[in-house]
């Protein structure tokens, strides 16, 4: 057994110890040998990163300019922006998002809701993976957090959209978005949309695009909130 194992070791392995790894020019053609000798890519990757990290203003359409920062105390929480979307109070704000599907293991879903009046945030996640138990978390968001979330929803103009032409929920899953903002109450349902490519040919592409980006931002908000509030640092 041990003889067999020893014979499987590459013959040059022992010889190369303590020596700089030089390309072995035996029967290898010169081109392949030089290619093997290159240790690093020609362009160092870190040099490429800053330009990726901060996109140019010319390429992307930026959201409208932020309101000039003003002092705001926690007791007097007024909206600083004078625009129509966000001049509402958080009294009539509610958002609920559901995504899930019926697999052969049962209903697997993720859902969260935020009620603006009380600030109550609820999060449910049920995965049937290896008999996982359902996760239910509840916390109360401050007015400032609610305001940040409400601004995301208001800026997206989702309440002006309609799900009449959107793909219907199907076997691959269902998404629901319910929003109450000012005096508008929407409750949309559509199929799982996992990429922009899937909605490229839809009739209501603009509406679905608005929806898709809003979902991404709602989820990144909830992800930040839940992971910061509930996650244990294991060291």
């Amino acid at each position: 057994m041990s003889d067999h194992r020893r014979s499987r070791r590459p013959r040059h392995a022992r010889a190369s110890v303590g020596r700089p790894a030089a390309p072995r020019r035996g029967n290898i053609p010169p081109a392949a040998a030089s290619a093997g000798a290159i240790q690093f890519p020609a362009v160092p990757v870190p040099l490429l990163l800053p330009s990726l990290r901060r996109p140019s203003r010319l390429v992307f359409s930026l959201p409208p300019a932020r309101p000039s920062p003003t002092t705001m105390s926690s007791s007097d929480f007024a909206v600083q922006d004078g625009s129509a979307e966000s001049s509402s109070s958080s009294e009539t704000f509610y958002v609920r998002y559901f995504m899930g599907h019926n697999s052969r293991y049962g209903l697997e879903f993720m859902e969260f809701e935020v009620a603006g009046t009380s600030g109550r945030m609820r999060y449910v996640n049920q995965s049937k993976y290896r008999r996982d138990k359902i996760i239910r978390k509840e916390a109360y968001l401050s007015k400032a957090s609610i305001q940040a979330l409400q601004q995301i929803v208001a800026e997206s103009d989702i309440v002006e959209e309609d799900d009449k032409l959107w793909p219907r929920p199907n076997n691959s899953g269902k998404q629901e978005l319910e929003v109450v903002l000012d005096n508008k109450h929407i409750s949309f349902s559509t199929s799982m949309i996992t990429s922009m490519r899937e909605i490229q040919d839809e009739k209501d592409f603009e509406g679905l695009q608005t929806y898709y980006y809003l979902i991404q931002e709602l989820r990144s908000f909830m992800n930040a909130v839940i992971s910061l509030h509930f996650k244990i640092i294991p060291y």
Partner: protein
Amino acid sequence: MISPDNDSMTVDQTAGEQPAKLHSVVRRGRGFNNNSKSTLDGDFDHIEEDTPDSASAPAKSTEGYTIILTNIHEETQTTDLRPVVAQFGQVLNISVPLCFRTGLAKGYAFVQYKDFEAAKTAIAVLNGTSDEPRELVLEVEVTADWAFVRGPARSGRQRK
């Protein structure tokens, strides 16, 4: 704005449990016809507080105290934020969610402190309501507040 068409209707009250006190609501979408059982029933875990306090008092997170910064500059990154917020105490976590259309900061950020006093000082100094000079992030006056409050007293089960 919205023109009342076949799919929009004006009702006096919203259906169901939430949000009441809406007098004239324009409803739209096919989700209203959904009669499936609510998945938001059941017992929810929450973080238990040591001492009772009012509903609007700041709430403890699992590891510390979380504050939210708003009005941050769109090019703010974690590395810009850390030196500013770390002056007030030990920072456990910083989260700067991005706008998916632009890749820039969405305008808010979360910072988690280990200690209550550090978070309290940070809010006061960043808002400019303390005796110290106001701290700026990327030369912008940000607004800080607690991210979580206690809410009404509950008798549900504790988180494990």
